[in-house]
């Protein structure tokens, strides 16, 4: 990376301005799937945080050893080893989390955030900077998940931190507190849709708008989906480089129509 940033900046950029979920729009699938309850979100966030920091560190250490042509498989092997370790730990110490997350725990291997950070950052930067980047991005991911799951659990299930005593929090000594039933004393009942997929997308959209607003007020551009071009792998994607896939915007029919018309007028 050409520009050198301070370690503090490497850490803080992941929290909001380059938040992996809300600003880089990475890891959307596990975000939507595991943010149905705060406890699950916390478990998922911490698992990803651990894998991300470890993989970033090791990949940064190996960056001069790995030939660039086989770097993606090499990264995957490194990430997979850490995911396996985390999965074994979760199975041993927090079996409820393992059940709740199901396939999304092993799927951290192919999580865009981790691979994206390896490709975009750890493969090019020093060990300490990569580790700090991993911590910042991991905390950013956890925070985004927690924001989403707070909204979804509160309005969809009427509770906050339900099932905390058997969750990952139990490792930190939370054994008597088992969540708050917010809606128990209200005359209304929670709307199930927030737990389901549509409510997840809705909450995700609102939070993205909110994060965009904050980033805009700090002078950053909006996070926009530009098809393949917005992918963090875009610079090295063989399909994109060979022209098999194109930037969606350049193919947008709406944008193309006035251009054709003006040509005709010119003739």
């Amino acid at each position, binding site marked *: 990376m050409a520009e050198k940033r301070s370690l503090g900046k490497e850490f803080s950029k992941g929290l909001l301005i380059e938040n992996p979920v809300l600003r880089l729009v990475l890891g959307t699938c596990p975000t939507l799937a595991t943010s149905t309850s705060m406890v699950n979100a916390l478990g998922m966030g911490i698992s990803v945080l651990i894998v991300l920091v470890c993989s970033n560190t090791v990949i940064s250490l190996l960056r001069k050893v790995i030939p660039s042509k086989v770097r993606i498989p090499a990264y995957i092997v490194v990430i997979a080893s850490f995911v396996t370790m985390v999965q074994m730990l979760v199975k041993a110490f927090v079996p409820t989390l393992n059940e709740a997350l199901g396939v999304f725990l092993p799927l951290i291997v192919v999580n865009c955030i981790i691979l994206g950070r390896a490709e975009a950052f750890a493969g090019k930067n020093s060990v300490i900077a990569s580790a700090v980047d991993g911590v910042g991005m991991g905390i950013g991911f956890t925070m985004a998940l927690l924001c989403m799951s707070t909204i979804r659990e509160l309005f969809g299930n009427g509770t906050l931190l339900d099932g905390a005593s058997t969750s990952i929090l139990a490792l930190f000594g939370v054994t008597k507190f088992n969540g708050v039933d917010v809606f128990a004393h209200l*005359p*209304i*009942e929670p*709307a*199930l*849709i*927030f737990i*389901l997929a*549509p409510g997840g997308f*809705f909450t995700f959209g609102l939070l993205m708008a909110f994060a965009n607003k904050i980033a805009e007020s700090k002078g950053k551009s909006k996070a926009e989906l530009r098809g393949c071009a917005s992918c963090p792998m875009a610079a090295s994607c063989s399909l994109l480089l060979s022209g098999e896939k194109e930037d969606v915007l350049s193919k947008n029919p709406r944008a193309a129509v006035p251009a054709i018309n003006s040509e005709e007028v010119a003739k």
Partner: protein
Amino acid sequence: MSDKKMLTASLSPHIKSPKTTTAIMLDVIVALIPSLVAAVFIFGYRALAVTGVTVGTCVISEYISRLVMKRRNTIGDLSAVVTGIILAFNLPSTIPLWMAAFGSLVAIVVVKQMFGGIGQNFVNPAIAARIILMVSFPTAMTASFPNAFAWKNETIDAITSATPLAALKSGGEIPAIRDMLLAKSGSLGEVCAVTLILGGVYLVIRRVISPVIPLFYVGTTAAIMLVYGAVKNENAVMFMLCQILGGGLLLGSIFMATDYATSPISFKGKIIFAIGCGVITSVIRLFGNSAEGVSFSIIIMNILVPHIDRLTTPRPFGTVKEKKHKKASDEKEATA
């Protein structure tokens, strides 16, 4: 001066209809009133309370959301009132009033105003709200349909029963055709087929809606039901009539599928849209878990409307068919 005015050519359209949005919406409200009266007659004042809450919440939330978004206020066009009435027609009369208010809020703020207000909504706000309510509160939305006229009996709890469609699905007792035409168990607005048809005829005469979508929608459903009934060796005609009159098909086809913003523009497009609605409704009713499929079929077809419109774009007079044109240019490219 006046000569100059005659010579000034403005941009098209040059011929303007005197119809305004407000006038059209007023016509729709007039067409909905007989069904509302029937609902109050059948379910009691509770029906009026539900309608009042939905209409009130719709108008207030439209006013506030336009104010917050700093846009021109549009409550004067009465579209929020229509959304409110149609949403109420989709709810059982026993629904808690706060749920009705929540549904109205979703319809106006999320489905309509967040996408740009009247004419910009990609699905019908009332149907989207109904589906969100149904997914969020399945018991309140489907479990307790009071019997027609149960409110007049002096029992404390209104006697509830399955809707004709649910009875048909589970093999229960099917009400007589006369009951289904006039008063049956169900959501507020779907229980009196006669007033719905009356409202539809009024709208067609006033040229507010074209009869294409309702006719093809009901026709497709009727044809599929007839075939299915015949294959199953039942009384096919009775089965078909029960399917058409027993649920929300008339309400959906006349008042919800014909929404301007969410139905195709061309004649051909309207036919495709209506047949699609009819097929999806029949498939959900016959082979799905749910007894009713009108709202889901309309919302699915609503989402397809932009594609239907693109496929059925009418060819401007005197132009070459685009397909041939494209083929010719493709061949040219290939040879070059």
